[in-house]
């Protein structure tokens, strides 16, 4: 890793198994990794490889079957439900593929919502919300509801909502998947700019080559296993393997059914 600072996310032997009736499906198989702070980090892999599951575990909205996850220095496995919700409210921003804005709230209110959860004073809330809408170029659409916005505008609101509380980490699950290439490029540029301005750690799960070309750290996973870790801008999925950040890829047979 090029950044000497402590990792913002650390996974140690994390396993996630889903129970589908009588069948156990291993979504994540003994993954250990460190994600450095202030980077544009990509988790890539084919569909069903476990990208979203990994992102959910990092985002503290799912719990591992076994293993330990540390986010922002906190062992999140030890937090109970309310504490975990508060932790997410303070430290983690989410950007979803389907935008997931609250449909009855205006763009302004959607962006303001996370600030209400951290109990910010009204004046500061208003200042930050307007500044963020300005930053994503939606000041004029502040009072419009999601159904009055285009796909690109919705994703801008979602980005503003994720960033407005200045979280430590922003997790984005396929953020450009529902956008055309022009809008996708604009959104990527926006996130790049925000990341540079606010020094926030972005962690993406994506297939999008255009987005992957901006990656500073890339974790390639397949069948729930970490196949390789690459550093540097412009890494692509098909390049030869580089040394893993921590631990090694473990095959399913070595891992067994957990």
């Amino acid at each position, binding site marked *: 890793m090029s950044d000497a600072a402590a990792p913002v996310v650390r996974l140690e032997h994390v396993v996630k198994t889903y129970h589908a009736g009588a069948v156990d499906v291993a979504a994540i198989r003994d993954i250990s990794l460190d994600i450095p702070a202030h980077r544009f980090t990509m988790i890539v892999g084919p569909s069903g490889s476990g990208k979203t599951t990994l992102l959910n575990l990092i985002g503290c909205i*799912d719990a591992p079957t076994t293993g330990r996850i540390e986010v922002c220095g906190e062992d999140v496995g030890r937090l109970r439900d309310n504490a975990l919700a508060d932790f997410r*409210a303070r430290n983690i921003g989410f950007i979803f593929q389907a935008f997931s804005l609250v449909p*009855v709230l205006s763009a302004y209110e959607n962006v303001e919502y*996370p600030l209400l959860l951290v109990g910010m004073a009204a004046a500061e809330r208003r200042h930050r919300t307007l500044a963020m809408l300005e930053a994503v170029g939606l000041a004029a659409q502040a009072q419009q509801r999601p159904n009055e916005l285009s796909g690109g505008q919705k994703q801008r609101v979602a980005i503003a909502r994720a960033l407005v509380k200045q979280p430590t980490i922003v997790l984005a699950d396929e953020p450009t998947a529902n956008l055309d290439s022009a809008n996708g490029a604009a959104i990527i540029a926006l996130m790049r700019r925000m990341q540079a301005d606010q020094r926030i750690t972005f962690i993406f799960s994506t297939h999008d080559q255009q987005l992957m070309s901006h990656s500073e750290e890339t974790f390639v996973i397949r069948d729930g296993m970490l196949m390789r870790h690459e550093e540097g801008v412009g890494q692509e999925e098909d390049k030869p393997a580089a040394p893993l950040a921590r631990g090694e890829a473990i095959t399913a047979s070595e891992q067994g059914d957990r």
Partner: protein
Amino acid sequence: MLFKIAFRNILRNRRRSLMTGSAVAVGAMAMLVFGGYITYIFSAFETGLVQRIGHLTVFRSGYFVFGAGNPAAYGIDDYQRVMRTIADDPVLKPMIRVITPTQSLLGIAGNFSGGNNAAKTFLGTGVIPSNQQRMRQWNEYDLPLPETQGAQLSDDAPQRGLIGGGMARILGLCQTLKMLDCPAPPPSHDTAPAAPVDQNLASLAQSELSSGDVKNASMPQLDLLSATASGAPNVVTLDVAGVAVQGVKELDDNFVAMPLALAQQLVYGRGEHKATGIVLQLHRSEDMRAARARLQTLIAAQHLDLEVRDFAELTPFYVQVVRLFSAIFLFITLIMGVIVLFAVVNTMTMNVMERTNEIGTIRAMGVRRNGIRAQFVTEGSLLGAIAATVGVLLAFVVAAAINHAGMTWLPPGNATPVPFRLALPSDHPPLLLGTWLGLVLVATVAALLPANRAARLPVVDALRHV
């Protein structure tokens, strides 16, 4: 934000909210209109009873259970002193509107004038006419009561009385009293001599009349025979001033009202005049319990052999009507509650299903489970509150329309129709508040189940929901 989201979601699902809201609003309206109806009935019923028999009556102990068969044996000794004691009591004095003695009696009434030779048993009551008229003006609930019509008793006419419509018919007084819808009796085929009691009563009446009573030529007269407290037969003549139709046939066929002095003369003759009851009419019905307690304290302190009964005890029919209507109201309330419960549960369940992804999103953003629960409960409560408020307004409109329609109805036990009215919701604040709060509570409780389901959804499952 909680209320903003709740309110906007209610508006967002307009049609669904309208259907659920309609159920709540109609429920509120039905409960308030029916509640207004029974409130009016209870008030009218209570007013009629209090006008007639007051709130409380002091009897000699045992009269309530055994006295009906022999009222003369249950007279209150020195009732004037007892009345003064009650009327002068500093606690009771401000509560009492009218205090008046009453004498119940029974005997045989005969009409032997103008070729008639009819007699029948009667149930009589002796009252002080001016006090009775004052009691009839009691109207604590400001009801639109009809004017008292027809002949009345008078303090200045000590022999003047009123009889029930049935008794007038039986005794052949229909034409004399110019009664409508009162057929003349069919000619009798019985050629047998009149019953001995009639002959005896006629001759006794004749002898009593000759001893000094003045015959009033302008009114029909009845001879009333009763046994005095000492067991001797006694007769007085009653000038029948008019008919007081009673709502219950058995009473109408037997009813005789007369001035107290005449009743006492009949029951006690030349002996000490007593009264079977001391009637207290209070300014306000709500003082009844306190007044009764005070009366019992006074009775106990003076070692009097008396007991106190309230108008409900004296009129079991009143209690039965109240219970019947209360049971119907409870039944309607339960039905409305169940309808509202299911309507809101259905609506909120659909809301939770439709907004599962939204629930996942805001949970991921850091909203706690209780926050989700509060969101959906707030929506249920708000929907209930808005719809219940609309229902209250509708109830006002319906009640006002009915009250202005000029309808009349015949209450149970009444002889004359009275205006049909509904108490406005504002006339009965506990009913209004209870209905509104009850429906909001039901809506809130109904929202709890779907809200709990929403709160328990795993975040990742909610986010995956399409």
